[in-house]
C-alpha cells in the first residue's frame, strides 16, 4: 500500500527549514533602503541579475502606469521611493519560494507577479487613503501571497485527496491545515517573516489579515481588515478565480463589514 499520511507538523517544519535566509545582496539592499540610500541600494541590487530582471518586470506592468519602459535600477528606486522600493525587494524575496511548477493552483510566475503587483499598488492606495506612511506597513502586503506558496508546497502531493475532501465539505486550505496540525497558513507566513527578519508589525498585520485572528491592537486590526478585503477583491478577478485562488482561504465577510463602504468607494466599485 503506497500511501502516506496527509500533512504532519514535521512536514511543515521541514518546509520552514528549507526556506533560504535572506541572500546577502538583498540584506545589503534592504539595509541601504532602510536608511534612505537609494543610489547605493540600486548599485548593490545591480549585482543580483534575477532581482534586476524582477524589478524591471514588475514596475513596467500597466498598473504602475509608466509611459516609457523603465530599465535602470537607480531610476526604478528613484521613482518608487524608499517604501515602495523596499516593498518590491520583499516581493522579489517571496518569489524565491515559488515552486518550479505549480500543481495545486493553475499559476505561473507571470500570473503570480501580476498578483503581487496588483496587491502592492492597491495596498499603497489604501495606505495613502488611511494616511499611513510606514515602510514596514508598506512591506507587509508582500508576505500575503506567500500563503499561496505555502498551500502549494504543502498540499501539492495530496491534490486528489484534498479535492475529494473539499467536494464533501467547504473547507479551505487554512482550516484543513489547522485542523490537521494545529498550525495555520498565516502562522507559517509569520515564521517566514521572522526568518527574514521582517518587522514584528508585518507578522501582526498578516495574522490579522487572515480574518480569523483579529488583533487586540485596534490599528493593526484595521489594517488586517483592509488587507483581507483587498485580497478578496483581487481574488475575485477572473484570472485568479481560474487559477483556483478564490477559495483557497475563507473570506470573512463579517470581519470587513465596517470598512466595506469606504473600501468600495476608494476602489470605485459600483
Amino acid at each position: 500500500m503506497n500511501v502516506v499520511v496527509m500533512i504532519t507538523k514535521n512536514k511543515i517544519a521541514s518546509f520552514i527549514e528549507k526556506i533560504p535566509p535572506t541572500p546577502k545582496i538583498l540584506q545589503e539592499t534592504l539595509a541601504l533602503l532602510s536608511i534612505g540610500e537609494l543610489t547605493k541600494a540600486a548599485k548593490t541590487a545591480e549585482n543580483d541579475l534575477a532581482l534586476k530582471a524582477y524589478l524591471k518586470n514588475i514596475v513596467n506592468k500597466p498598473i504602475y502606469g509608466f509611459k516609457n519602459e523603465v530599465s535602470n535600477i537607480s531610476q526604478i528606486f528613484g521613482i518608487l521611493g524608499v517604501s515602495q522600493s523596499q516593498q518590491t525587494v520583499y516581493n522579489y524575496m517571496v518569489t524565491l519560494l515559488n515552486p518550479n511548477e505549480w500543481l495545486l493552483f493553475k499559476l505561473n510566475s507571470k500570473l503570480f507577479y501580476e498578483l503581487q503587483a496588483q496587491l502592492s499598488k492597491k495596498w499603497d492606495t489604501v495606505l495613502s487613503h488611511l494616511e499611513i506612511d510606514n515602510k514596514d506597513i508598506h512591506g507587509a502586503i508582500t508576505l500575503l501571497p506567500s500563503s499561496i506558496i505555502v498551500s502549494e508546497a504543502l498540499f501539492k502531493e495530496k491534490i486528489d485527496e484534498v479535492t475529494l475532501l473539499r467536494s464533501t465539505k467547504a473547507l479551505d486550505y487554512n482550516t484543513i491545515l489547522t485542523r490537521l496540525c494545529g498550525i495555520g497558513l498565516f502562522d507559517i507566513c509569520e515564521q517566514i517573516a521572522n526568518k527574514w527578519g521582517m518587522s514584528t508589525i508585518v507578522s501582526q498585520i498578516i495574522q490579522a489579515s487572515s480574518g480569523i485572528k483579529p488583533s487586540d491592537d485596534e490599528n493593526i486590526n484595521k489594517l488586517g481588515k483592509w488587507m483581507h478585503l483587498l485580497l478578496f477583491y483581487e481574488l475575485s478577478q477572473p484570472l485568479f478565480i481560474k487559477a483556483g485562488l478564490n477559495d483557497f482561504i475563507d473570506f470573512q465577510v463579517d470581519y470587513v463589514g465596517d470598512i466595506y463602504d469606504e473600501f468600495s468607494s476608494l476602489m470605485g466599485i459600483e
Partner: protein
Amino acid sequence: MKAVIKNGVAVFTPQGFLDGNNTSSFLELDDVEAAINLKADLILVSLKKVIFFNRNGLDTFIKLFSKIRKKNKAVVGFCDYDDNKYKAIKNFYKNEIYFSLFKTVEIAYLFSSSFKNQNKNILIYSSDNSQRSAMAIELHDNGHNPIIAQNEADFLAKKAKKSSYDYVIYSTYLGQMGQNIATRVTGNAIVYTVSGYLDVEIGNKFNIEYHNNSLNVGFRLFIFDAYKVKSMNVHALNFFSKLSSAGAEYNATICFAGMSFEKTQKEFRETLEDAGILFYNELDDILQNKELLKELGASSAANIQNKRVLNKKNVLELPRFIDAAVVTIEMMTNAKAIKESAEIHNLVIDDKTDKIASSIGYYGDIDGMVILVFPTKIAQKACELLIGESTDDLELILDTLAELVNIVGGNIKTLLSNDDIRVDITLPRTYQNIDDLLAVISNRKGVQVDLSFDGNKFLFFLTR
C-alpha cells in the same frame, strides 16, 4: 469551481465580488454537469461569502441556470443570503424569477428528495399565497410537516414559539422545481412520492438504480405515496408490474397508498394486484401498523433471497478498494494505517459494543458494497476534520461518518476509473447498532480486512 454536494444539493460558494466580468469564471457548465453526475438535484450558488454583487453578475449565473434547467430539470437558484441580498435579488428580477431562493442551505436540504431527515415540523411564511402553498406541498411530499403562517402577524406569533418548530422558512422563493420522484426512508421502508398523470415518463423519472441498490442493501418494503396521482396509463401499469416482479426475487413488497382509481381503469388495479402490489387507502395505514410492517418485511432487512457471491472482478480490484478507504481515513485522522489481516468469510465482529458502521454501494461495470466498522472513538477522531471540533453528539458523528464514507466512495470511483472501470456510488448508510448491519448482510461472504490506526482497530468489509 467545484461544488460541495450534500443531501442531493450541490452548492457553489464564490467569495468576494460578483460582477459581469467574473461570474463566468466562477461557474462553468462542466462544473455543474460534474455535480449533476453526482446525483445533485438542486444546483445552488451560495451568496454567504459574497460581499458585493450586481445584476450583471447574477445574470451570468441565471443564463447558466437556464441551460441546466433545459438539460437536466434540476432545481437551480441561490442560497445563504441575508434580507438585504434577498430584497436586492427580488428587486432585480421582480416577476421574472424562475429560479429558486433558499435563505440557507439547510432550508434547501428540506426540499431535496435525497434529504434523509424527514418528519420535521416546519413553519412557512411568504407574503405570496401561492408560494406558501407551493412550499407546503413540496415539503409534505418530502415527508415533512409544514405549518403555514397566514400573514405576518400570524408568522411572528408562531415564530415566537421556537421550540415548536425544527425549521422556520421565510425569505425563500420556489421557482421551477425538479421533476424527480421524491424518495424518503421511513424506518426500513422506502417511500416514493408520485403525482399527476403516470405515463411512459415514469421510466425516466424513477431512479431504478437507486431502487435496485436499495434492494441490494436490504430494503424490502417500497411504498408509492400516490394520493396526488390523477390517472395511470398502460405504460405506467407495465412499469409497476415489472418493478414488482423484479423485486420478487428479493422477497420485496411494493405498495400503493392513497391511489384513487376514479380516472384510471379499475382493471388496472387487478392487474397490479396480480403482480403482487398491495393497495392501502393511506400511508399511515401501513406506517403506523407495526404488525403489518413486520408482515411486509420492513421490520427486518435481513430477508435476502438472492445471496450473491463476491466475484473475481471485485477481488481483483480489492487493493484499490482498501486504498480508497485507507487513504481517506489516513487523511481524516492524519495517522498511518497498518493492515493486520485479510480473509474471506462472513463479517465477523468480535466485540459489538461501542462500534458504529457505515456502508456504501457501487454499481456499473462492477457492483458491490463497502462496509466500514469503527470503534466510536475512532469515528469521532476521523470526523473531527470535517466537524472542526471534538464531539460526543452521536447523531452528528453518524451524519459526518456518512460524509466520510461518501469520500471513500468517491475515491473508489476515481481509483477504478484509472483502470477504465466506470461505477456510480449510492448514498451512504450508517448503522448506530452493529446488529442492524449484521442483519442486512447476514450470510454474505466477503473480504474482511482488519486495519489498525495508532493501535486502534478498524474493519473494512467488501461484499456483494
